[in-house]
């Protein structure tokens, strides 16, 4: 699993947030555009690209994009 590809795919789920905002240390739940709908898109992206299941707990406990990457990577 490539961290940069994950970061890019993560960023692509947002429509209005500038791509330059997204770094591994971005606290994604603090972004204005973050919503439960975006969360569902992220779950779908991880399912499609990595064939892995993100749970509600993963999303609640991860703070940065890197945290989420690590959780997906460990599955």
């Amino acid at each position: 699993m490539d961290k940069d590809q994950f970061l890019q795919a993560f960023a692509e789920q947002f429509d209005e947030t500038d791509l330059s905002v997204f770094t591994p240390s971005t606290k994604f739940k603090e972004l204005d555009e973050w919503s439960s709908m975006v969360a569902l898109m992220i779950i779908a992206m991880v399912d499609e690209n990595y064939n892995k299941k993100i749970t509600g707990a993963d999303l609640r406990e991860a703070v940065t994009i890197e945290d989420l990457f690590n959780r997906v990577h460990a599955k």
Partner: protein
Amino acid sequence: MALLHNRFVSITGISACVPGQIEKNSENSFFPEGDVKAFIHNVGVEEFRKAGEDTCTSDLCVAAAEKLLEDTGVDRSEIGLLVFVSQSPDYYFLPNTACIIQDRLKLSKETLAFDVPLGCSGYIYGLNLIAAFLSSGQMKRGLLLVGDTASKIPYPKDKSSSMLFGDAGAATLLEYDEKADGLFFHMATDGSGHKAIIVPEGGYRNRFTANSLTAYTNEEGLTRSPNSLHLDGFDVFSFGISEAPKTCKKLMDHLKITTEDIDFAVFHQANKMMNEKIRKKLSLPETKVPYSLKHFGNTSSASIPLTIVTELKTALSNPVNRLLLCGFGVGLSWGTLYTNNRSIFVSDLIEI
């Protein structure tokens, strides 16, 4: 692996009933307008039907059953089995609602009647149960009633579920049929996910207390009371997009069929984003996958027959219907049915 085949059984008729009262999500006053618009766009529910205080699931199911029995002219004395699949019974603990319905429908006292408290997977489980009873040829007909007044269990200010669930009841007649290939099933359960869709208080694990009605707001800003519905939308979404395609594929591989061998695939109406993911994963064209979600919301165990009644009434009068039906949700529980069924009589949708 629960791959099952019940020979000599046909589905012969389907009907559905919804309350007349329409709730439009665009008129929702609890949530910000932008959130409501995003919900309607992504989840796909514009409006749903809401049963009044005095209307129970059994009332919707009895009306659907009366219509179907009248339309098909089936002799009630031939119905040997009545199964009521619902999580909104007339009485919380006893007696079973199916017993009350046996009397209301004036079915024979020689009828087996019982409740099965399943939700979104319940239509498939109910069909499987009735098919198992009928295929031995010891009774002629079975009546499956499914549905919920699901709009009554979310806390009204809970954004995760109060705009999603609608109320409906449906009736399905099955019969012993020596000429039929029968019904093919894949059934599954994963109770490790039981907290993904749960009403935490009010049963025997956590008894109803004075606090059960007290609202609180969780870390995600969702307001609920302990005896209202707690839906973990993320867990359910993750489950649905992964397991629903898998169960369909498992059954299709087992039967050595492809999407070409399916005229219509009717899925539990969970959420448009989820259902579209499932459809695309299975490479099913849009024309084969009908929806009732937009006007009726997620109607729990009634969603598959309600979609058939509202979207496929004419189509199912064809002499042969190759159907894939798939239900998935609370439990977690899921199941898929494939049938090469003869023509199915579908009643007009009724409202009460």
